[in-house]
């Protein structure tokens, strides 16, 4: 079949550590990249702006979170707050006249500093206690944003993003905003893949798997946990800014509430912890499946298969969606990424049945 390891020989350590050593994987990545680049030319603005664009941005958010939760193994239930810090600081920086490129970096740094401050406080505890500590961050940040008019623009206020340009391209058109989001998520994905094959990623995984064994070969657990919080919060902050400028274009504190944090955790879990493709699949699942289910149920009702009240129609997709998440956690705890991996391995060893892991 098309997946073949035969003929893939490594004569240099560089190629043995290539991102996609198997030609079939390279083809898939190239095709997906081309489709993503060409999307504004063949997708209607409805699909581009309301489905693909948020999917990409939330994928970047899920990847930021899975660096912390999947690689470093530190649970974080307040990641929407990190994104809120990024969104609000980028807007204020841009309004202040800071070039948008720098505002994005400023957003990342603000989120990273505040995120790792909470991280440092939270790192004395593990597991469920860490969840509580990060929840506290969510509520504290929410409270500060809502109650400090200088940040939120007043109670119940909506803060519009100023019009900006990125590298001399004004972000007024949908396709410009789409390409910025695409560029960011591609950068995040490549960064994540590189982290996984370098010493930084290995140190994080070592702490997650066996912290005492990590310490005994020279990893300072506190330092690397903090680095994980910093890096992840930086990415989350920039993603929050990209979300504000490319998608929402007007932010309110509710857009970054506790529900959103839970959605992010769901994306990471359903997608598969610590996996890049899992980040994309998880974000797609959590964002798009409820919409698809609603359309499906409404469509079947319209076709006269059964009758549903509008009240029931509002809830049925949510129920199916909840059942799906429970199903995933029960039957494939490693998430959509594992399902993808199983299919890939099936083709890799085809026509035989078993691969070793």
């Amino acid at each position, binding site marked *: 079949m098309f997946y073949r390891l035969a003929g893939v020989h490594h004569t240099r350590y560089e190629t043995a550590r290539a991102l996609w050593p198997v030609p079939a994987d390279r083809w898939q990545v190239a095709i997906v990249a081309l489709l993503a680049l060409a999307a504004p030319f063949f997708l209607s603005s409805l699909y581009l702006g309301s489905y693909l664009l948020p999917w990409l941005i939330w994928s970047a958010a899920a990847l930021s979170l899975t660096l912390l939760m999947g690689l470093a193994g530190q649970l974080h239930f307040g990641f929407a707050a990190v994104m809120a810090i990024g969104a609000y600081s980028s807007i204020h920086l841009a309004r202040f006249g800071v070039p948008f490129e720098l505002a994005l970096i400023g957003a990342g740094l603000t989120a990273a500093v505040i995120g790792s401050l909470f991280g440092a406080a939270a790192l004395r505890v593990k597991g469920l206690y860490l969840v509580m500590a990060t929840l506290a961050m969510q509520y504290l940040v929410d409270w500060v944003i809502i109650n400090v008019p200088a940040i939120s623009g007043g109670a119940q206020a909506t803060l519009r993003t100023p019009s900006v340009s990125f590298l001399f391209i004004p972000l007024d058109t949908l396709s410009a905003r789409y390409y910025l989001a695409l560029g960011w998520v591609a950068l995040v994905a490549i960064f994540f893949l590189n982290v996984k094959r*370098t010493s930084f990623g290995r140190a994080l995984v070592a702490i997650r798997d066996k912290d005492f064994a990590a310490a*005994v070969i020279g990893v300072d657990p506190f330092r690397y946990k903090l680095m994980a919080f910093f890096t992840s919060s930086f990415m989350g902050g920039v993603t929050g800014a990209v979300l504000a400028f490319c998608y929402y274009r007007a932010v309110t504190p509710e857009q970054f509430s506790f529900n959103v944090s839970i959605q992010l955790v769901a994306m990471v879990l359903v997608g598969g912890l610590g996996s890049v493709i899992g980040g994309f699949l998880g974000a797609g699942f959590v964002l798009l499946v409820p919409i698809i289910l609603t359309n499906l149920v409404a469509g079947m009702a319209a076709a006269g298969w059964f009758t549903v009240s509008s009240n029931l129609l509002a809830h049925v997709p949510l129920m199916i969606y909840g059942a799906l998440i429970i199903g995933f956690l029960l039957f494939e705890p490693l998430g959509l990424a594992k399902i993808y991996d199983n299919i890939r391995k099936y083709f890799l060893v085809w026509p035989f049945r078993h691969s070793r892991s």
Partner: protein
Amino acid sequence: MMEGRIRPAHEPVLVCENVSRWFQGVHALKNVSVTIGKGEIFGLVGPNGSGKTTLVNAITGFYPPQQGKILFEGKQINGLKPYRIAEGGIARTFQNVALFRGMSVLDNILMGRHIFMRPNPLASLFYWWWAQKEEIAHRRKVEEVIDLLQLESVRDEHVDVIPLGLQKRVELARALSAEPRMLVLDEPMAGMNQEEKEYMVRFILDAQDALGLTVLIIEHHMDVVTAICERVLVLNNGSAIAEGPARQAISDPQVVEAYIGKTRDAA
């Protein structure tokens, strides 16, 4: 043959002076003193619960002793964090294999190079211009260890799927790739069959020879202990009951008593 291995003037590498450790009411180590010489293979034996692992944990910084001093190459190391002690040149393996289960064999061994690497998110981001060179350089070092321990065939496997004997060997490889001057092995042959045991002994001797290591080894297989250890320390209930050349120490009446009881108990 063993007599030939004993070098008379050992320069001391690791010195424990009156080390004591309590866990609440349990007095796990009672004034244990021991000196291990450079290049020596030193055995630590004793019945279950006698404090062998506690002594090793005290040396590697997990359970710092409440009393006493531990010197490594003349510098005091008790009170240092475990990762500091690792940076100082002591590597160890664990009784229950403590590999990183989410990683491949190669990545696990590469982890041993951590103290020589400069992990940094920016280096990862600019992989091709920054981190790659370092990764490759350390990969070469790791491949030497893989060669030495004959792990070539499994280097790309996940550590989960290889047999226990190999897992223990991977753990040894990880410790060796940190280029330690002292290696602490906590029951490296527990749960192994005879063949795996012989391999392991061979590898420990090879590594000690090739890298000029000092080895502290906890082991229950007395055949192994008498075969490779120059001297042993016998612990019982947290106190040292015998010390000296391996055969002599384990035939000490007190040691026999600690292991299998007194003759009059047998009745």
